[in-house]
């Protein structure tokens, strides 16, 4: 019993310590973010690695998610004779939830883990210390550009995901099943609100971008500088950022659509 309590206490203290450390890390990084924008080529490089290289997985997954939504949505809706609402179902699911959330989960496992691995390996091979010894702050030169690259890519990736998804849903619904093209788009346009759905989706993906990028760079920077430590840090990045995205999604959704 006492051991159980002690374990619980240990976990709590450890958790709080980690959160505090991550917060301090975030502020230190923001303070050293000047070069990421003054020398924007640093950030452009990271936009390439986290944004452009994630495009394939985002586009392919978006297309499949949209097509599945088309099939499932049609199957359910036709039982109530409201196939005409297919466009709304597909667009609303993608814009409000699936676009930001699934894109963020994919982003965490594709780009987040890569960033953690890169920073972790640089730490393990003393590249970060070497940089520090050359009077170049690794927070400013290595960490901050990767963070901002992630933050900037995420909303764009989520928008691309949703768009491809809508097209995928349209393909199944209109081209394959034969729902009327005009009904599909007009129903969609009638029920989707720009402020309520599109902007909220972008806000969500922006917040997810912050969360995933922070976790990725923090885990890389904080890892034990050994091969084992780096691999553990990558696992942590994927697990923590997935959980964080889902938890944040719940919180944001309740503020955006329920609490008013």
């Amino acid at each position, binding site marked *: 019993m006492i051991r159980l309590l002690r374990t619980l206490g240990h976990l709590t203290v450890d958790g709080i310590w980690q959160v505090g450390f991550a917060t301090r890390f975030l502020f230190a990084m923001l303070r050293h973010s000047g070069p990421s924008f003054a020398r924007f080529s640093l950030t*452009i*490089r990271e936009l390439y690695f986290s944004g452009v290289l994630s495009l394939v997985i985002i586009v392919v997954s978006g297309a499949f998610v949209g097509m599945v939504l088309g099939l499932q949505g049609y199957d359910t809706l036709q039982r109530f004779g409201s196939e005409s609402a297919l466009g709304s179902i597909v667009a609303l699911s993608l814009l409000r939830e699936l676009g930001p959330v699934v894109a963020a989960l994919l982003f965490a496992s594709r780009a987040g883990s890569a960033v953690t691995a890169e920073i972790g390996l640089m730490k393990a091979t003393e590249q970060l210390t070497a940089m520090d010894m050359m009077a170049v702050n690794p927070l400013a030169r290595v960490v901050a550009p990767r963070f901002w690259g992630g933050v900037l*890519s995420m909303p764009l990736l989520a928008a691309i995901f*949703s*768009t491809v998804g809508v097209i995928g849903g349209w393909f199944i619904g209109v081209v394959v099943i034969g729902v009327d093209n005009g009904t599909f788009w007009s129903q969609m346009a*009638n029920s989707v609100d*720009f402020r309520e759905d*599109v902007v909220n989706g972008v806000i969500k993906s922006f917040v997810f971008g912050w969360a995933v990028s922070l976790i990725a760079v923090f885990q890389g920077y904080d890892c034990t500088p050994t091969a084992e430590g780096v691999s553990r840090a990558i696992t942590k990045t994927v697990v923590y950022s997935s959980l964080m995205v889902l938890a944040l999604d719940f919180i944001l959704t309740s503020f955006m659509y329920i609490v008013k």
Partner: protein
Amino acid sequence: MNRAILDLWVGAFVALGFVALMFLAMQVANVSEEGTRGETITLHARFEDIGGLKVKAPVKSAGVVVGRVTAIRFDSNTYQAEVEMKVSAVYPFPRDTIASILTSGLLGEQYIGLAAGADSEMLKDGDRIEMTQSALVLEKLIGQFLFNKAAEGGSK
């Protein structure tokens, strides 16, 4: 990686992202509001009960979207709902047009239906549609139905 190629890729990526956002805004959310594109006139109407009508609900005539609801207020003098709508100026309606609140399908969204009258004068910007028909509220209908049944049973 060559700097120029890198810039090109990132540029393409950012452009693609913005195209996607534009697509979502224009095609999916339809910011341009079809049916109220171009010149519009504002019309008012009072309803006893608007049911589940919401701002931005379509205004249709013969099933075609001709405008949108822009505001819904409660008038404490008449205890009625005051609805403001913007209707395309391309379609003029006679002064004795009837506005009713209808439902698309059994459980669908509610919209305002305009049934044109025969007056030779047309509605102008800021005019009021005098003849209105309230929404059919399902609970009221069922209540009425049950009441009638009970009354029938009692009279037998």
